[in-house]
């Protein structure tokens, strides 16, 4: 067997067999699903806590808040709020609401409690009082102007345009209804995962190199294989770990989506939705709210399988390309230092470049057509992240090819340069390495 394959195998297997890898790979998608399920449940769950609230109403407004099923408002009149609020709490009230005399001018009221008042309760009280005051103000306007149907007239002026975004599908020549929001989110998620993956796995490459160097096993190994083979074996082995992790995640997410869809909306066929089915009729037969169905239909049309496959392929290329570009540099850093604390001076510039790429991605998400977006998706240090954000919005084939070619050329030449640093660094102990020193190493003949 080729020696580099032996190295790749070891680097891959030792990492994949680790418990942390198994836990992270299997658990993360389920954790995400559980997290979202929990959020949904929290949002849907209503507040059933029974509360009694004392109201000191010094305004002229009659019954500004009304009791609900769980919260009772008791009006205690003619009491001084400042002096009595604590006593009222001691009597068993959950909170004391103070509506001052001049609330008309102040637009302020107070809700006093010895506990943190829940958001829902707070907004309920605020809305009730605001509505009441607004109502009174309107009535006086109606009385003054004599327009009895003022409310209806004002309501009729309310306007909310729904802007459909349609995209010409180059293949079929048909216009497709797509959602910019969903595309933005997809682009950003793709860019973010690349960013995290590059950071996570390149750090692993660096740690692996430092481990071999500080273990002093490296000289034994390079007496059997070329240093470059050892470096590439490590880089490729760790890349495979990343790919396996990613593919497992994709498979699990697809599975969870399918299962979730079967549970939530069993009668809906995604393919008919994608063809643009009659939503109203569908809503009738499937007992699903038409608004929800609209959202699902929008997602289904925006993210059709052909597009997702293209995006996935682009993701895989930019992940591998971006990873190889940075991994070689991280390997060189690992070789140049004696331990992890010394990596800082060399890591910082790379981290800054990666962070810049990430923030550029955020900017590009808002506007994918700028010249910054163009350059950032051509320059190899930022292109893996930025291009992935851009692709959902459509990128000309020529730009895509240029970006891919430049990234490929860059990682090949950087790997070659890093190999030179690596080869010398791994056998160098106890020397504080500077950038000048690294440059010298690059220029060595052998």
């Amino acid at each position: 067997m080729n020696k580099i394959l032996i190295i790749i195998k070891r680097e891959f297997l030792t990492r994949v067999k680790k418990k942390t890898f198994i836990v992270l790979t299997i658990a993360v998608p389920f954790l995400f699903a559980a997290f979202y399920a929990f959020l949904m449940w929290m949002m849907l769950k209503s507040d059933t806590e029974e509360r009694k609230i004392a109201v000191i109403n010094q305004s002229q407004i009659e019954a500004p808040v009304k009791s609900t099923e769980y919260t009772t408002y008791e009006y205690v009149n003619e009491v001084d709020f400042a002096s009595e609020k604590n006593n009222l709490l001691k009597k068993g009230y959950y909170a004391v609401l103070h509506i001052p005399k001049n609330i008309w001018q102040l637009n302020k009221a107070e809700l006093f409690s010895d506990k943190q008042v829940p958001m829902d309760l707070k907004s309920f009280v605020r809305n009730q009082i605001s509505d009441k005051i607004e109502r009174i103000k309107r009535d006086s306007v109606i009385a003054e102007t004599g327009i009895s149907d003022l409310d209806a007239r004002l309501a009729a002026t309310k306007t909310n345009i729904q802007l459909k975004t349609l995209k010409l599908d180059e293949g079929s020549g048909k216009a497709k209804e797509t959602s910019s929001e969903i595309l933005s989110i997809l682009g950003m998620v793709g860019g973010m995962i690349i960013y995290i993956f590059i950071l996570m796995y390149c750090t692993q490459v660096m740690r692996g190199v430092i481990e071999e160097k500080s273990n002093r096993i490296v000289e034994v190994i390079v007496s059997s294989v070329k240093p470059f083979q050892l470096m590439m074996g490590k880089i490729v082995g760790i890349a495979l770990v990343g790919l396996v992790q990613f593919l497992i995640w994709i498979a699990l997410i697809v599975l969870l989506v399918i299962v979730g869809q079967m549970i939530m909306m069993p009668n809906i066929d995604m393919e008919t939705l994608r063809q643009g089915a009659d939503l109203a009729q569908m809503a009738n037969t499937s007992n699903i709210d038409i608004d929800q169905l609209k959202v699902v239909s929008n997602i289904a049309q925006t993210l059709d399988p052909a597009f997702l496959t293209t995006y996935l392929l682009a993701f895989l290329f930019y992940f591998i390309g971006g990873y190889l570009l940075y991994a070689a540099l991280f390997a060189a850093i690992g070789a140049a230092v004696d331990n992890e604390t010394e990596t800082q001076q060399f890591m910082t510039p790379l981290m800054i470049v990666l962070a810049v790429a990430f923030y550029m991605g955020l900017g590009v998400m808002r506007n994918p057509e700028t010249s910054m977006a163009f350059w950032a998706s051509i320059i190899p240090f930022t292109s893996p992240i930025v291009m992935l954000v851009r692709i959902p919005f459509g990128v000309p084939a020529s730009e895509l090819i240029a970006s891919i070619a430049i990234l490929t050329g860059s990682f090949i030449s950087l790997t070659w340069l890093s190999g030179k640093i690596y080869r010398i660094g791994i056998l160098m102990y106890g020397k504080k390495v500077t950038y000048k020193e690294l440059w010298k190493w690059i220029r060595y003949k052998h």
Partner: protein
Amino acid sequence: MAFFETINIEKNYANHKALDKVSISIPEGSIYGLLGPNGAGKTSLIRIINQITAPDAGKILFNGRELRPEDVNNIGYLPEERGLYKKMKVGEQAIYLATLKGLSKRDALKKLKYWFEKFSIEEWWDKKVEELSKGMAQKVQFIVTILHDPKLLIFDEPFSGFDPINANLLKEEILSLRDNGSTVIFSTHNMSSVEEICTDISLINKSKKIVEGTVFDIREKYSTNTFELIYKDELSNKNDILSNYEIVREYSENGNNILEVKDPKAIGANTLIGNVIANNLLISFKEIIPSMNDIFIQLVEGSKNN
């Protein structure tokens, strides 16, 4: 014919010359000591022999032909800076390192089984290296170095860090490997180990080879023609007997008189013995041969003065 040869090897680093036209010739079946003070260039030379780095100039011959990349499979190397993956299991790691030397997994397993039994360390197989003591790890390292039956074995400071028992075990194994046909290069500045096992040596100092040859020849060459005589009573006609010799030292110990004399005219031991025993009771006579350590220091100091 030399089994392994370097011819005019040169290696330059940015600010110094590590090796300056170094030519050594290692006979087949020898235990070849590569000696020299720290920083002389021994490790640079060893790394070139192992093809870890390449020389700037010069040729390397292995069995009469130029050294090839695949020859690494015929070389076993135990570096001075040596270690193992701490988190990896002993057996797995040994197989990994053996397959990197070109052994198939099955052969590696078979040979490892033999050596683990020989050193009675079978129960370490599934242990992680971090659970082993330093001496235990060294045994594993030694096995991994020799497992692929290399024709050429290179040990860089092999005894550093070994406890006396392991050092002895190592020494015996090295000798038996030599007996089974391997050639051994031995880099060290531990002179007593050189005298015990090396057959040939070369001394490198300040990037240059100063001397090379068999241990016997070198000691002969640097012998000072000094003899030590031990006798009971005062020598009679001492002045006559020693007229052609220089007295180096004269003292008594445990009731015996001891005399060290130099033979600058190289008259030889026989004449001196004959003259002494004619009228005196000689208890012991021997030539004082300089130890490798003395020669080493003499040569290194000598080159310093030049």
